[in-house]
């Protein structure tokens, strides 16, 4: 890793906890060259090329694969219970896949803090899940598994439609709030001895509602969240509040699976930033900001692939660290 990339790596961790992305102070020589070349390109030519790129058909490859996965996983829970096939028993907070314990990291943490006593099964389940999400990317959980994410994606579509009609505006919130909320809920669990966060976790509520078809009142809270996201703040819960997202984000720091940005062909239209749940991780695509010719996207990225689908030049791609070197 080049020095500039190392610096960015640390920077991106800060950004995940709520810091604003800064203009880089150190940029690799070869990247500076590319930036300069881009500035020299004829304006009109560039505009024409952009148009041509953008005119191509909309591509939803990754989104479709992702939705299929998300629905499949959640259905597997439902089907396992209702048809008693014992493949994936439990709910998203804790489950058993073909007999193996799987325990959601955030829920496990809450239980450990509240109960102050850890039994082996809990530890095994947490370890398995930790290993799994380290391999798969951390917040990959958010966009590929979390059922609330799916609902919120549709709410977001509605929100964007209303924004376009100028009926609502997105009013962003301070991203540091998520870190604060993580700390407060951890403290609450520790002090009250009760997993307070579970009472409002839309992830758990929706998952249980799907599987056990109960918790109607709790679903009203989830509905309220969605309404809030449609009319006031785009993707409010996942962007600014959800402690689960932050927990998995931390896991993503060491994950080899991520999206990688290649500076060369990028036209800096910023289309990717418009579809991203966490656009602060894509600050690198802003003109002049890439610190190297290839820049991995930070840990807060949910690996949803919307930017990969959207990018007209193929400058954003899924990547597994070290794999290209191996091959």
């Amino acid at each position: 890793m080049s020095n500039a990339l190392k610096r960015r790596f640390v920077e991106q961790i800060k950004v995940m906890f709520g810091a604003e992305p800064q203009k880089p102070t150190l940029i690799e020589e070869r990247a500076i060259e590319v930036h300069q070349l881009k500035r020299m390109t004829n304006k009109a030519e560039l505009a024409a090329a952009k148009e041509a790129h953008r005119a191509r058909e909309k591509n939803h490859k990754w989104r479709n694969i992702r939705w299929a996965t998300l629905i499949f996983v959640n259905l597997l829970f439902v089907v396992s219970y209702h048809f008693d096939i014992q493949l994936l028993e439990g709910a998203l907070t804790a489950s058993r896949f073909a007999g193996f314990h799987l325990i959601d990291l955030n829920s496990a943490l809450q239980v450990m803090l509240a109960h102050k006593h850890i039994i082996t099964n809990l530890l095994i389940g947490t370890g398995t899940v930790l290993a799994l999400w380290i391999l798969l990317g951390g917040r990959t959980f958010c966009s590929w598994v979390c059922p609330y994410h799916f609902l919120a994606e549709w709410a977001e579509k509605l929100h964007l439609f209303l924004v376009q009609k100028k009926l609502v505006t997105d009013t962003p919130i301070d991203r540091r709030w998520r870190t604060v909320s993580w700390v407060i809920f951890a403290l609450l669990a520790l002090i009250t001895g009760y997993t307070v966060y579970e009472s409002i976790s839309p992830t758990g509520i929706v998952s249980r509602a799907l599987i056990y078809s109960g918790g109607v009142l709790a679903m009203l809270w989830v509905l309220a969240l969605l309404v809030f996201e449609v009319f006031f703040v785009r993707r409010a819960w996942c962007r600014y509040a959800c402690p689960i997202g932050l927990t998995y984000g931390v896991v993503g720091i060491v994950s080899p699976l991520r999206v990688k940005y290649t500076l060369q062909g990028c036209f800096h239209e910023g289309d990717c930033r418009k579809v991203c749940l966490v656009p602060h991780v894509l600050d690198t695509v802003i003109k002049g900001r890439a610190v190297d010719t290839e820049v991995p996207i930070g840990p807060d990225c949910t690996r949803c692939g919307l930017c990969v689908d959207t990018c007209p030049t193929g400058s954003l791609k899924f990547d597994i660290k070290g794999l290209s070197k191996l091959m």
Partner: protein
Amino acid sequence: MSEDDTPKVGAADTAPPPPQGAPGAKPPLSKERRLQARRRFMRTILLGGGVFGAALSGFLPVAYAQKKRLRPPGALDEKDFLASCIKCGQCVQVCPVNAIKLADLADGFGVGVPYIEAREQACDFSCDAVQCILACPTGALTYKKPAYMSVRPGAKLAEKPILLAKEKDPEPTLNLTERIGVARLTRPESCLAMQGKGFKGQARGPDFKGELRYMSVDRWRPIKVADHPYDVELCDLCVQACPIKGAISLETVFAPDGSQRKTPVVHEPCVGCGVCEMICPTEPASIEVIPGEGWRT
């Protein structure tokens, strides 16, 4: 999608980038920007407060829980149970009679926490081995409580309970060391046996959905209580239905006027499963299980 080069300020971006191609120092914050920042701060406080309000509204009922609920067998004491349960419902999934339910927001003791409504569907140990404990990943339900956790007075069972259904097996007992409650004849005046009455028909009427395992019908499959009508000279349904050996029997007592009566009497092996409460044909039930209660002599 807009044709703009510059990512829109305030649209998707929490980090409005400086104008393109303007290298160097940050422009000083304009008045407009400062105002924006202040508004954002206020919104953050508001949303934050809202989320906590919601979280606390889910927690306060737990803190001030008035009504005790029957927990699945093997549950730790209430406070430890609430702390350790991860709300996954694996206990719900394994129960052959679907005795375990998950709480909703208004039930007042935490969203997603399992409980048993014995009158609707009691745990009759149809699973033979307290499967819910086996399923629980966090030890909220446990065969063996950690030594440092205290035992509620009267909760400890003198012996491992013998499951009548398994009485002839090499291992007839249930792996339970503590009871989840105790049955009490809370309404002796309405008890049919006390009045010397018999009972004929479906114990809880034709619409009752509860299930029970009847060894005489099917060793492995519980059937609907409604499909198993009774006809007894003197009501002893609770005694017949109790799955635990020696937990309850019909005894002779003398009423104040000197006449002989029969009454169900609960004994020490009672584990508090609540089957007697479910089967009791009077409305409301004459015998009830008191959640979390200990045995008193």
